[in-house]
């Protein structure tokens, strides 16, 4: 007769706290859930930080809008372009660097690299970067320009594409961004 070897665990069940592998997976699962919850919190914080990055103070943002308003309302080209350009409406955070003038006489390079123009021509209501419309982020001047809405839908899931509307829809009295950030006048 052949002797059959049977595991002790099969005869006498182990208490669950002694099943190391099982406990290990349970712990991994619990930790991952806690981590994800934590991440959610963090993502929320991140988006707040983003907002701070874009607009450090609320009143400053409003100031910008007023500037933009004045700019758009005043069509005469004689007026010297505004010197404060740190914050630009309608751009993506990742392009922020491109829109910041770091030293005098620095040129703005269209995002597709097609052309370089003085920073004074950025958002002056005339389309200079005709190939991608990137110099006019919050005016209607470029027929192919993109205005990135303030509220980007991607921050909850981390996925999805940028939320933008054609610049032709800025300030046309029709709300296109979910937060209506395209109507700022």
């Amino acid at each position, binding site marked *: 007769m052949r002797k059959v070897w049977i595991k002790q665990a099969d005869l006498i069940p182990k208490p669950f706290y002694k099943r190391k592998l099982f406990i290990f997976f349970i712990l991994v699962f619990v930790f991952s859930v806690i981590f994800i919850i934590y991440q959610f919190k963090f993502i929320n914080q991140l988006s707040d930080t983003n907002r701070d990055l874009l607009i450090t103070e609320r009143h400053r943002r409003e100031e910008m809008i007023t500037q933009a308003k004045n700019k758009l309302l005043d*069509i*005469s*080209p*004689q007026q010297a372009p505004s010197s404060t350009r740190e914050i630009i409406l309608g751009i993506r955070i990742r392009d922020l660097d491109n829109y910041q003038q770091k030293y005098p006489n620095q040129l703005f390079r269209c995002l597709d690299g097609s052309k370089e123009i003085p920073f004074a021509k950025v958002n*002056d*209501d*005339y*389309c*200079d970067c*005709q190939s991608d419309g990137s110099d006019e982020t919050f005016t*209607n*001047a470029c*027929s192919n320009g993109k205005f990135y809405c303030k509220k980007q839908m991607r921050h909850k899931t981390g996925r999805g594409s940028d939320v933008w509307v*054609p610049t*032709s*829809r800025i300030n*046309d009295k*029709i709300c*296109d961004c979910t937060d209506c950030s395209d109507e700022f006048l």
Partner: protein
Amino acid sequence: MSRRLCLLIFTLFIINALAVDKNNFKTCEQASFCKRSRNVNYEKSPYEIVPNTLNINANYITADIVNKENGHLFVLKLEGIKGNTFHFEIDEKTPLKPRYRVVDALQKEPTYEAVKVSSSTSDITVTCGENKAVISTAPFKIDFYQKDVLSVTANSKAKMHFEHLRKKLEGEQHQQNNENEEKDNVVDNNQQIQDEPGTWEENFKGHHDTKPNGPTAVALDFTFHQSNVLFGIPEHADSFALKTTVGNGDPYRLYNLDVFEYELNSRMALYGSVPVIYGHGEKGTTGIFWQNAAETWIDIAGTSNEQNVMESIVNFVAGSRNQDAPSAHFISESGIMDVFVLLGPTPNEAFKQYTDLIGHGNLPQMFAIGYHQCRWNYNDEQDVMSVAHKFDEHDIPMDTMWLDIEYTDSKKYFTWDHQKFPHPVEMIKNLTDMGRHLTFIIDPHIKRDSGYFFHNDCTDRGYYIKTKEGKDYEGWCWPGSASYPDFFNPEIRKYYADQYLMENFHENSPETGIWNDMNEPSVFNGPEITMLKDNLHYGGWEHRDVHNLYGQMQLVGTFDGLIRRSQNQLRPFILTRAHFSGTQRYAAVWTGDNAAEWGHLEAAIPMCLSLSVAGISFCGSDVGGFFGNPEAELFSRWYQTSAFMPFFRSHAHIDTKRREPWLFPEETKLIIRDAIRKRYSFLPFWYTIFYEHERTGMPIMRPLLAQYPLDKNVFSIDTHFMLSDKLLIRPVMQKGASKVDVYFPSRNGDKQGDIWYDIDDYRKIDHVGSESVTVNAYKVPVFQRGGTIIPRKMRIRRSAILMHDDPITLVVALDAKKHAKGTLYIDDEKSYGYRQGKYLYLEFEFKDGVLSSRLIDESASYNTKTWLERVIIVGLDKVPTEATLRTSSNQSTKLEIVDASKTSFTIRKPGVSMMEPTWSITLN
């Protein structure tokens, strides 16, 4: 039940008719009056002026005419009209009862001019201004001279034929007369007419026409002595230059008919009739407006467009033409001879002489010039809104959503189907909030349904067209059994117009457009799909007398209703299918139910050109073709063609596949998007030429011969057209084309031409003749004439009205002398304020390196936010280093020059407001 029946009938239509069923429509042989008149063949016309009956008045003369065959007397009245125009009419002297004369076509009483008369026994010469009309007394004919050049002759071929009203000879009397030995020629002749079958009654496909008035035809021929081509008399799906019909099939027919799946290259009647014809040759242009609303046939002879090359060479060598001068023989079933002779002498002057009589097309609202999205049918509210949103999603501009008949509650107009459209008012508002409009259909047939207020009112008050017995006429149309209001009665027109008012039709908005379809009128079970000719209208007139005017009288009502709906504020937008002389005063016209075939795309241009020269400029075709499913290439080429035609609407039959641009491959969608966006970039130009059309009456869309009358090669070209005198368009209309031949016309008939610039890359073309232009899928060959300035707006938005305040780009294309001129018109784009001087009309001129602007109408003013964004100068050899702007307040500003290339450069952001009364930009 009736809906089901209607559907059944409709399905039968679809199954039976893969193309037009010609048997449904009469040939000239089958229309007895046409047959009789066409066969008139006198050696010498029997009509003569009766001696000593000449009456001379300040602005006109009258004389009696006698028909020598039967002694019947007629009266001729000839008068001079300001601006190289004569008018004459011939009516019976003492008719048994009055004969119908058209009173609703002319816009107003023409301005008559004094005439001088000299007469001899053989002729009477009537001089008016520089022109004269010479009436030969026996046989009767009239020669019209423009200055001293013989332009046109009436009755030179002795085809004049006037069937006077007569009593029907009863059988017995008839017999007696035959037996009467002493019968004279007069009776004999009468007898001949009486004997012809079809004279006193006529049968066609089971329909009986009782003809209570007997034979009433009028016919007259006109010879155009200076002409090589004849054109006009829309609407036919045929070439722009008319073909010879004598001895070559049927004449051209004018009888408003709902032709199912109409055929190309055909002289069959279509939806509309404008009885104006022009003859054109190098020596001048002459027009004839035959004012008659009855069924009319036009027999054409001697047009040279079918000559082969060999023949032309022989003629050229021989120095004369071997053919007679072209002639047109007008044959109408009833009415009187009522003729306006338009003496040109240039094509544009002749067109203007016609529109000065009939009325100029009105400036539409801006949205109407944008792109229209239509389909039979957008099924419900969600469908309408989702299509509108999809246009935004794909960033394709669109101005108007359309609703075909299915929006109604079982085809009862002025009601909504509340199952599918529970919130019409909100739906309209949602569209309006997006800068868009809605247009819906109101047809003239009224459902016979005792629960329908309109029907009850019409029945109670006797508003319907009557049968010869005096009962309400009942026909069959979309709703099933239907009757037709008699729009000739002013009271009925007012009642009908009242239905558009907000207080009567709540689910409406002052902003919606109206589409009047099926107004030929279309009667599915009637003779030739229309109404019985012996039906009776207001004033006791037979339908035979007024048929071609019926649709237009509906428009008069609709127009009045829409004006009153907005308290005289907004310019109405109406689209109509049936049309007549004068329709341009009320509505836009489209070319009806075409098909998704390349041939129908090509036909759109000659059809709209013919309408344009006949005063109706606001014309377009159904993009993609109404019947059938267009392939992707055809569909995109159709968009490209229509983007440069005045009325731009996509439309499709209910049985076709859905065809919104995004349902096609991505590439096709992008081509369509590009074409529509190109249209929108030209909106300021479109709006300006629409305004100039109202101001001058000259067509918007013009045949090449209008601008290049001396170039014989363009006389028969109808694949090209011009917008105003500025753009030359030669759309791609062939499948798989990689090249198209574009003809650049000559100004003097020789080698001297204009300079042209391709609007896409500003390539310069400075030679006369054909050039093969390479095209890709996106390319529409469009050329701006050197010497013109065109205003554009480069910021394309989702709809035309949202572009109202956007800045202007001027494209200055220079001629050989480095000179250019152009205009720009600005107003609020919707109201009648411009008629009270609330507009700006600017003229730009580039001369000696200076671009300047001035107000053409200095008294007019309008507050606009529009400013000058850029000036593109094309065709200057040297690129200046900079430019200086000087405004009227003497401020000067330095401007930058950017984007310089071989042929063009751009002046960056002059920024001057369009309100600035004068300004100039000097190139340094």
